[in-house]
């Protein structure tokens, strides 16, 4: 068993010996696919630019080209990036040079944390207070126009200061229950409506807890979707965009040095516009440069180039809600609700355009490098058509878009549609950027600390316990291999600088189990037991002590992992893994060696 565990541990830690190749990664953006054709053009481009490459691979969602050195990598990125255009992301990457036979076992090298690789870590917080404020503003506006439409007279509608409730003051008491029934019908679940009769008849509308949770969760999801889209534009090889806790989003961009640009792109504001498709215009002619004066050509589009009228039907700030669901045929659809003003506009515009097509344009403003006269960065407007649909009938405040593709796409579209309206503002609350030189220095420093510590302990143990010290040293080496093997095996584990510190500490503490056992054996020998008996008793009586001591340290490591963040977590992972592996190597491992060496023989003296 010992041998087997070691072989497996060795196998999984082996990829770390092979290092990494500088590589170029090409992946599709917004539905663009990477396929053999793209691969051919990439390879052709490299040949043309006379850049030698080691290997090119095509996998499900990306092309990876391994290059000889970092200079070639930069040149290749430029060459490929220019030729492929906007629909593809070309990113610099480091591809593990793990041999195929090891990859077959699913083995890969350790993932390095940002403090070792270099890169940016952002923690962003969604401003929930603002999100809720906007929600209530919207509710007040809607109630006003709804009640006016229903001809229910009210004295005033406003949010109760400091509370999550909207108060509708009515003129007379008789209106209370019709008003309540009307609002309940209209808004249904998620709202709790209470009547307040007396001299001052009013309805109190509050959001249910569930609805509040939904709004919050939506605000975060929406931001995540938008950030993901933007991160793709940055061309980062392995970005991470993840929710953390209730209202935070972690963004990690390994290898990104230009944080200013990253922040600008992530912080860009987005809006939406609804426009009519110019059905009379000639798309072919427009593509050749003859665009009708009333229209504009959109080449960046999910549905291919499209010609849209310049006139804007509606802007995104009229969108109150957008969600995805299924229509009566089980096809995904996106439901959109507008505010009353928006509903009126939409209704007026669509009246005469039934049968025509309407498009949604997603607009982002991004800062560019140029500055204007006042020293402020010029903004660049980036427009993209995210949906084109046929108008089936006159549309009102609530309508839906069908045929927008898969359910995931419908979901995405819904999130993007909401981006135009209720987007909750987002704020960077934590930033950690590590330059590439510091990352490499951290790796070097960590590695030399591990090696020096390891060497010191080896010498000490050998000197102090002689042959048994040698046995402990073998176990310690095996322990190091196992820690790295286990770390490489666990998908979520990343090695950070504090993680390396954890490994160093484990090296020091791992010998403790052996020290306990060996001291016991020495005591037993002093009590005039035979060497065989002493070994046997030493291992047996030390076991419970070792277990107790390690379990308590393990508890501390688990708590560190559960409560800590960032660097503390990295340390906790290696500490916990180190405790588990050291228990194994120091007890089971050394016992196996000791038995193989001294077992079954008559010996008079032990070298301990």
């Amino acid at each position, binding site marked *: 068993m010992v041998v087997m565990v070691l072989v497996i541990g060795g196998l999984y830690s082996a990829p770390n010996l092979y290092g990494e190749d500088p590589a170029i990664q090409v992946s599709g953006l917004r539905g663009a696919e990477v396929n053999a054709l793209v691969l051919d053009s990439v390879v052709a481009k490299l040949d043309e630019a006379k850049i030698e490459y080691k290997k090119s691979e095509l996998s499900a969602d990306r092309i990876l080209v391994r290059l000889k050195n970092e200079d070639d990598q930069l040149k290749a990125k430029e060459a490929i990036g220019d030729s492929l255009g906007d629909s593809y992301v070309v990113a610099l990457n480091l591809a593990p040079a793990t041999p195929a036979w090891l990859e077959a076992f699913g083995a890969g090298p350790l993932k390095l944390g940002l403090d070792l690789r270099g890169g940016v870590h952002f*923690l962003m*917080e969604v401003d929930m207070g603002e999100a809720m404020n906007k929600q209530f503003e919207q509710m007040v506006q809607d109630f006003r126009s709804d009640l006016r439409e229903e001809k229910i007279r009210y004295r005033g509608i406003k949010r109760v200061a400091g509370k999550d409730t909207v108060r509708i003051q009515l003129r007379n008491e008789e209106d209370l229950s019709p008003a309540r029934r009307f609002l309940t019908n209209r808004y249904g679940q998620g709202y709790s409506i209470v009547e307040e009769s007396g001299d001052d008849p009013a309805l109190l509308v509050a959001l249910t807890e569930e609805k509040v949770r939904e709004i919050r969760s939506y605000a975060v999801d929406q931001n995540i979707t938008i950030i993901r889209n933007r991160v793709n534009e940055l061309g980062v090889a392995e970005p991470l965009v993840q929710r953390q806790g209730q209202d935070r989003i972690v963004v990690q961009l390994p290898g990104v040095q230009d*944080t*200013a640009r990253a*922040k600008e792109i992530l912080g860009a504001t987005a809006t939406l516009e609804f426009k009519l498709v110019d059905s009379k215009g000639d798309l072919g002619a427009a593509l050749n440069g003859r665009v009708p004066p009333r229209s504009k050509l959109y080449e960046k589009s999910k549905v291919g180039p499209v010609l849209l009228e310049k006139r804007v039907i509606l802007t995104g700030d009229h969108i109150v809600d957008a969600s995805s669901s299924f229509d009566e045929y089980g096809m995904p659809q996106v439901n959109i609700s507008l505010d009353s003003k928006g509903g009126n506009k939409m209704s007026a515009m669509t009246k005469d355009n039934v049968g025509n097509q309407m498009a949604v344009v997603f607009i982002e403003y991004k800062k560019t490098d140029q500055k204007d006269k006042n020293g402020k960065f010029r903004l660049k407007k980036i427009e993209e058509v995210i949906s084109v649909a046929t108008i089936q009938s006159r549309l009102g405040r609530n309508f839906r878009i069908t045929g927008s593709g898969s359910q995931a796409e419908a979901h995405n579209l819904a999130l993007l549609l909401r981006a135009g309206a209720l987007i909750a503002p987002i704020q*960077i*609350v*934590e*930033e*950690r*950027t590590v*330059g590439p*030189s510091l990352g490499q*220095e951290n790796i070097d*420093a*960590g590695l*030399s*600390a591990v090696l*020096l*510590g390891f060497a*010191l*302990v080896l010498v*000490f143990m050998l000197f*102090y316990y002689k042959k048994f010290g040698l046995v402990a040293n073998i176990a310690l080496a095996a322990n190091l291999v196992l820690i790295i093997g286990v770390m490489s095996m666990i998908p979520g584990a990343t090695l950070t*600088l*504090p993680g*390396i*510190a*954890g490994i*160093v*500490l484990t090296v*020091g*503490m791992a010998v*403790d189990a052996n*020290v*306990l056992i060996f*001291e016991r054996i020495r005591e037993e020998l002093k*009590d005039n037991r035979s060497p065989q008996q002493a070994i046997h008793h030493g291992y*047996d*009586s030390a*076991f*419970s*002590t070792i277990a*107790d*001591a390690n379990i*308590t*340290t393990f*508890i*501390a490591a688990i*708590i*560190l992992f559960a*409560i*800590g*963040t*960032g*660097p*503390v977590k990295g*340390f*906790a992972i290696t*500490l916990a893994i180190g405790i588990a592996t050291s228990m194994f190597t120091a007890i089971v491992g050394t016992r196996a060696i000791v038995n193989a060496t001294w077992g079954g023989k008559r010996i008079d003296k032990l070298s301990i």
Partner: protein
Amino acid sequence: MQLLSIKDTIKFMSIRRFSMAFSLILILGAFGSFFTKGLNWGLDFTGGSLIEVSFDNSANLKQIRGVMEQQGFGDATVQNFGSSRDVLIRLAPTKSKDDGQKVDAKMVGNQIMTALIAMDESATMRRIEFVGPSVGDELREQGGLAMLTALICILIYVALRFEWRFALGSVTALAHDVIITLGLFSILGIEFDLTVLAAVLAVIGYSLNDTIVVSDRIRENFRKMRDMTSEETIDLSLTQTLNRTMVTSITTALVLVALLLMGGELIKGFAIALLFGVVIGTYSSIYVASSIALSLGVSREDLMPTEVEKEGADQDPMMP
């Protein structure tokens, strides 16, 4: 080879009044420093911005301070970090009220880098950190919570596995180690950041390791030595485990020295905290944990009923 070759039992417990007084002085000293100097909280806990820049030649701190003032950051601290070519610039969290300033706070790092590159082209960014004030407060809360949770969980485990007097003794020893380690950081004014917090928690783990080993031996000896007093048994146990305690402390200290020397600036605080923690943890597992268990009146009878399930059962009842 033997570190200490001891024939007789060392009377550790006979000086326990002295050692208790010594510990009390250390703890009072630590608290005194907390109240007068406080801890030098790092960026992780206070919030603010930090920029580490390296230059090709020795950095001109005066010139950098001038640049900082020009940029409107007169309150920035500028100091060397590790070598004369590396510079660390710290900014207190911007007290932002309106939105405009908030945006500034996170762009500060980039703004300063641009200004420094304009001053000296060789300036390269090594790291930029920005922690919002709310995050800092949270991390501090989380850190304290982690420490308390760890102590309570350990208290429960030791109480279940041994006896409440041992549990109280070992947790007191842990609190003792943590307080004195924090006191050292306060007195020396070393920055206390998240990695140091991790180190302090590791000190808890380490010191506990030591205490458990000692307690385990005390329990075993209580069962074997029927005609010894409690004090004698504890002295004997401490003497028997002394070699192991020293050897493990030495190996751990060795790797920590390696970490301190080779690990670089970022890990220095971590290594110092642990190194000191190992020393104080070794002391406390000998003097503090056992003295408290003894003062609380731990005796043979307290440990007998659990005998059946313990490993001591399969051992010879008497030593030859």
